[in-house]
């Protein structure tokens, strides 16, 4: 009896805690004071950076940090979402080349800001860009990613009269060349090649894969490669060095990365003219907090000034809490991420576009957004919406509505009917009667929930969906090998021209290619070929419009939604968040806030 009483009490305590957790009663009587008063931004990183060498690092979290140390030539402005100068005077001069070695290609000419300089006082010149390319193409370190990204560059030439001007020569026209060249990180040679080894080699020799170096030369290059891969260049103060406003102060693995503003930084005087050079906080502390509950607790304890990608339920709880409202600005800007479902078109059941369109009608996307992500998303029906959110471009291809009756009609028209009255439609394919039973691969809880809702609506029209949960990399492996029928996937967008080649061109139907489902459409291939080299924005939009019409009709993928980016930023700072996220270097400390200490 006593034990029963004890267990009841224990259960009561459990229920109490659980109840408190799901329906918190905020303490509204407390006067809110800010915990920190220093001009330091404490921002969350969801995972540690892998390293801070921009040519070696692969994690997006690394990029978030090193961009303050080693800035790009240009980057997307959080306000305009356009490529905006950081180290250069303006947009590149673009020339289509009609003669010479690069006829048919394009040249891009940039000029460094006069004031831009390294920490040793030397100004940035074309030689620094040439050095950086030499580093990328030196094969004595694992440079596959770096050189792969810029293999389209044929040559770089310095202006004879102006050492700050330099021109990239690109072999072929390509709509993304400008973005890629503008987002290059330039390395200081005095840090990364202290012995000046690469100065002994020409860029052309290094970039030429057929060039044979002598043994002595190879030994020198090997020495450079070994030195470049030394871990000090990846994570140590004094070795991760650039011309940016901040320097690496401390990195405690898995805990935090501290950046400290340089004294008398050259860019301070230019911030009015070049807003991307803004560097307000004296320090930026990136706190690495992987667990969502811990991150929310840290936010409530004011251990964080900025956090994004808050879970929708947490965001609602936080933003409705009066105390938190006084401490933080909450916003949920668009996020350039989209979710979609890919069909395996190699499967005879999914070969007909009517079947794919019918399935597209079975995704109740409004319901999914309402119930799975608490309304914190925006519907998308093609990938370009994340790149070019211009309504005019998309008005000709409206989203496919949730319509069970229409789905039924399309299936019937495609020959799928329930001949044996077992609740699943069937059809004879290659002399064999097959039922429309399809697997759906999911990896995240969100994808799993989407699958369950989809399964219910599919059942109404006699389509049997079997959701299978797989760990992400396993799922990706199955999709790459074509061992799937339907699979939930996600993609990342950018505010730049969209190149549909990876996902839609027949060249990428090969094993491991990103046209996962094996979608082949001759007209689409032709359009993609034109889109990729059409440098005129208006003409390219015309091509996009036709492309959208076709893929909307063919439905090789069903695009679902783009989740918003629930964000909280401390009211200690004046700062904004956009679809590019927040830029911690732009957090301006307010002077009129209450401080606890």
């Amino acid at each position: 009896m006593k034990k029963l009483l004890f267990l009841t009490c224990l259960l009561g305590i459990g229920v109490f805690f659980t109840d408190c957790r799901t329906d918190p009663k905020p303490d509204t009587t407390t006067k809110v004071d800010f915990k920190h008063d220093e001009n330091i931004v404490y921002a969350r990183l969801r995972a540690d950076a892998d390293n801070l060498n921009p040519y070696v690092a692969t994690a997006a979290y690394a990029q978030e940090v090193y961009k303050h140390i080693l800035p790009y030539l240009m980057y997307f402005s959080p306000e305009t979402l356009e490529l905006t100068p950081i180290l250069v005077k303006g947009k590149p001069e673009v020339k289509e080349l009609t003669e010479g070695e690069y006829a048919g290609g394009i040249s891009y000419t940039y000029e460094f800001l006069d004031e831009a300089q390294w920490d040793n006082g030397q100004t940035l010149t074309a030689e620094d860009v040439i050095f950086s390319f030499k580093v990328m193409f030196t094969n004595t370190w694992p440079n596959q990613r770096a050189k792969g990204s810029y293999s389209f560059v044929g040559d770089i030439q310095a202006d004879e009269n102006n050492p700050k001007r330099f021109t990239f020569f690109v072999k072929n026209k390509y709509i993304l060349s400008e973005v890629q060249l503008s987002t290059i990180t330039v390395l200081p040679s005095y840090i990364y090649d202290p012995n000046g080894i690469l100065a002994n080699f020409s860029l052309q020799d290094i970039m030429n894969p057929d060039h044979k170096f002598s043994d002595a030369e190879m030994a020198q290059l090997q020495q450079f490669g070994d030195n470049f891969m030394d871990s000090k260049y990846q994570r140590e103060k004094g070795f991760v060095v650039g011309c940016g406003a901040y320097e690496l102060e401390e990195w405690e693995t898995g805990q935090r990365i501290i950046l400290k503003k340089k004294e008398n930084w050259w860019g301070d005087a230019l911030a009015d003219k070049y807003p991307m050079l803004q560097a307000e906080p004296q320090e930026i502390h990136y706190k690495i907090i992987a667990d969502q509950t811990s991150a929310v607790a840290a936010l409530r304890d004011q251990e964080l000034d900025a956090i994004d990608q808050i879970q929708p339920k947490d965001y609602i709880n936080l933003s409705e809490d009066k105390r938190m409202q006084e401490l933080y600005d909450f916003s949920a800007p668009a996020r350039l991420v989209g979710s979609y479902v890919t069909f395996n078109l190699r499967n005879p059941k999914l070969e007909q576009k009517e079947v794919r369109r019918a399935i597209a009608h079975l995704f109740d996307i409004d319901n999914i957004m309402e119930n799975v992500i608490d309304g914190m998303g925006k519907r998308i029906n093609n990938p370009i919406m994340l790149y070019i959110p211009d309504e005019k471009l998309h008005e000709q291809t409206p989203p496919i509505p949730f319509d069970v009756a229409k789905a039924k009609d399309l299936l019937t028209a495609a020959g799928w009917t329930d001949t044996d009255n077992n609740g699943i439609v069937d059809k004879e394919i290659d002399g064999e009667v097959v039922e429309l039973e399809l697997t759906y691969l999911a990896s995240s809880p969100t994808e799993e929930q989407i699958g369950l809702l989809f399964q219910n609506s599919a059942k109404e029209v006699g389509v049997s969906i079997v959701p299978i949960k797989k760990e992400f990399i396993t799922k990706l492996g199955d999709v790459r090998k074509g061992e799937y029928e339907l699979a939930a996937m996600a993609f990342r967008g950018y505010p730049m021209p969209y190149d549909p080649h990876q996902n839609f061109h027949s060249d990428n139907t090969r094993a491991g290619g990103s046209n996962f489902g094996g979608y082949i459409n001759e007209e689409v291939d032709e359009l993609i070929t034109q889109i990729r080299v059409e440098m005129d924005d208006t003409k390219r939009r015309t091509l996009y419009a036709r492309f959208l019409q076709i893929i909307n009709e063919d439905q090789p993928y069903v695009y679902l939604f783009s989740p918003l980016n629930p964000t909280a930023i401390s009211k200690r700072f004046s700062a904004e968040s956009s679809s590019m996220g927040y830029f911690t270097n732009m957090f301006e400390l307010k002077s009129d806030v209450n401080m606890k200490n």
Partner: protein
Amino acid sequence: MQYLLKRLLVFIPTLIIISLVTFFLSKVAPGDPVMLKFSGLETVNSGGMRSYEKEQQLYRETATELGLDKPPFYFALTSAAYPDTLYRFLKQEQRETLEKLIAQYGNWTQIESYHQQIKQLEKQLLLVPDSLRNATYKKANAATQQLYLAYKNEPIQAQLGKINQVLSEEQNSELSKLLAVDIQQLRGRYDAILNQQNRTALYIPALNWHGFDNQYHHWFTNFLMGDFGISYNDSRPVVDKIMEAVKWTLIMNFLAIFFAYGIAIPLGVFSAARKGTRFDRVNTVVLFALYSLPGFWIATILVVFFTSPQYGEWLDIFPAGGLGNLRGDAPFGDRFLETAYHLILPVFCMTYGALAFISRQMRGGMLDVLQQDYIRTARAKGLSEKKVVWKHALRNSLFPIITLFANVFPAALAGSVIIEFIFNIPGMGRLVYDAILTRNWPVVYSILMLSAILTMVGILVADLLYAASDPRVSLTKNSKK
């Protein structure tokens, strides 16, 4: 001493067996190491203009860098149907397809010839001028790529059918002329596989010797030399990552073990000595309750309720996680206090469950011993109860505790994944967790090997402690006589 030496000698074959298991686990783990290392070779933002050939070249370079161009082991015990050079097919997916074809048909000569013909057709397709690349071409191109992965007859026939459309739908066209020979040869070579099956070869064993220049040899000898390899996702030496993480795990485990054993042993002894009293009953209930509360739940509850003023200012007692904000150059005393403050909750979470369990084991062991004849004799001799319990009974009742103590070694290294994750402590648990999520196998397998070694060490230490705690336990055969 003799026993110790013998046990240490037994370690060697055990370690080799563990290394073999670990290595072969790494070989059968899902995911292509090259793709993992390169984080998606084909999805890299490559300027979009990177050619297929260039991607293939990058793949080969990465595979060579990882040592995958070498045979996996000293020898391969297979069937006569398998060639001894299959490892030279660097692309994992293609190699797996070839293995599956061999397992079905057993005729490597025909299979290799068929594979080479797919490559030949692929090359020929790339040479087709843009003007001829119509829908039929595109289907044939895609189908050719699919043949690299297809191993069952039906899908292969379906893909060959699509390729054959070039001949049937494009009769006498330029495209047909360009590809006809290769398409016909491909069909012929696949038919040869079907018609010249040699399944008998599958049942004839074969031993292929690959020598010492193999993947396992390099991996294991490097491991023994303290070189655990390079982490896939940040290109850092694995040993550096382990050294960084292990300090926090060791600190937390040391504290947790210290408190757990320091509290549990006296508590268990008192509880046994006062069996049936109110103290024993309350102690039993509380310890069972503690033992039954899952660590992740308590940790989450503590973080939610005691690290922020959300439920009242007075509950904001502990930091939310991490190890504090003090810099590396702050005075040692300040850092010590800051770190200690941040470790209170995680150490508590790691301690309470172990404490409850150890205490119950101690109580049980002590109760058994207290019923022994020699304890009755000690009491009859007039010794005080304190002396009986603490001097005579305690040592012999430590057996279950010593057994538990053997687990401390691997646990101290492996860390507590959940506690470290929730409290944001960059220890071994989080390192393993992150490594598994990202398929960073060099890290995972190094820790697995170290854990296995420490488990062996733990068992050895436990054996030695048995002998130390009870003179009746003998570790040598001679002393038994």
